């Protein structure tokens, strides 16, 4: 069958499991993006606006962390939240909090890096204007966030898109548990391993549609900024 028709049928069939899987995916992505927002903004602003020794090195590290393989994050968090690990008593492994923790760590460098680059691109005249008009430190911070709001929105949407499409963290920390931690990507991986390529492809198209929608938002945000 045509996989596009298959995708359409998957959506239209009203299959409870598909909606649950899509919902789980969005839920995990929402929380991990939400949790990466505050520290991401704080670190990004720190990197962009404050001069301290090792700042350039820190920026380079953050930017290379955006390319960190998901399985590496998965492995690190796994050893952290396994019952035999330091945070074992939380019982987060193979449960939503584990996935959200891993995805938050995945999203964080993306947010930091994009906020940092976005703010670095702000004109020098911008800060001078705030200063000469008498704005203090806090007011300047608030005004900077307002000035760069589209950059920030696009950073968050980028992070959201990244965690929506990742499979390593969800698989290793979520365990692909049906009705619980199964996401679109782990379902695709499972269907592929079972040889159910058509369903996998249809799900892939559904996922692609979601990320395309998110990317359209990113571009709209960036375009508006320009």
């Amino acid at each position, binding site marked *: 069958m045509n996989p596009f028709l298959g995708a359409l049928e998957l959506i239209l069939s009203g299959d409870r499991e598909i909606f649950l899987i899509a919902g789980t995916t969005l839920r995990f992505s929402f929380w991990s993006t939400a949790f990466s927002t505050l520290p991401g903004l704080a670190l990004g602003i720190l990197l962009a606006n404050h001069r301290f020794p090792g700042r350039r090195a820190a920026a380079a590290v953050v930017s290379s962390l955006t390319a960190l393989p998901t399985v590496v994050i998965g492995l690190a968090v796994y050893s952290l939240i396994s019952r035999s690990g330091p945070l074992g008593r939380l019982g987060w492994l193979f449960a939503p909090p584990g996935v959200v923790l891993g995805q938050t760590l995945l999203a964080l460098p993306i947010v930091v890096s994009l906020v940092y680059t976005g703010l670095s691109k702000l004109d020098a005249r911008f800060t001078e204007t705030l200063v000469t008009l008498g704005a203090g430190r806090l007011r300047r911070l608030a005004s900077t966030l*307002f000035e760069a709001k589209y950059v920030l929105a696009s950073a968050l949407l980028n992070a959201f898109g990244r965690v929506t499409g990742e499979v390593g963290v969800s698989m290793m920390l979520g365990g692909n548990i049906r009705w619980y931690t199964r996401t679109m990507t782990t379902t695709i991986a499972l269907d592929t391993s079972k040889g159910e390529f058509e369903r996998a492809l249809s799900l892939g198209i559904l996922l692609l549609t979601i990320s395309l929608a998110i990317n359209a938002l990113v571009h709209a945000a960036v375009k508006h900024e320009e």
Partner: protein
Amino acid sequence: MRSDAILSIRNLLFSYGTREVLSIPELDVRAGETLALVGPNGSGKTTLLKLLNDLIRPSSGSIRFEGRPAAGDPGLRARSVYVHQSPFPLAGTVYRNVAYGLRVRRVPEPEIRRRTEGALELLGLSGFARRDAKRLSGGETQRVALARALVLEPEVLFLDEPTAQTDRASGDRIRTVLADIAARGGTTIVFSSHDGAFAEALADRAAFLEEGRLLRIEAGRARRPAPKSHAPEFPA
């Protein structure tokens, strides 16, 4: 230091790395005067204006505002304002831009409205309040930036090429407004300009800069002839 100096510069040196950008042994800005900075591009006019407004700090030497060090002085910050040659419009409406400094100063909202509308009207921007500040012409942006500064009723005004990059109408408006302020007295204005005729007409004195050096200071042809004691000065 002259007793009527509001800003005084001594042994000022500003450099980027090893490149010396500005070196001024002595310069006083007198309270209430209009001082023009005249010189070609790269002569250090912008640097001097930013130094006087404490937007950048000298590599060595001192700048004093009413006798106190200018660096970090809250009085200088509250009572003076600098306008870029090519101003940066803040995100949002023209109204937000002009009201910004008043909000910073926690002025009550009704007064902000009154003063902002007044400043907009002064610069012929009455219909512009709701416009997106990022989508204005060069001349309009220049007028918004001037309104944004004047609404604060500053005692010291630093203007970097206030009529550069403006269309004729905007330029005329700005020249008229500045001439009025100068004529009214009470405001110290330091400005740079390529527009020789305008500078001469507006300024009490003109400081000539070249390659980061202060060449000489001449009396301008301002409407208020400088008192005798304000004869041209030439630093040693």
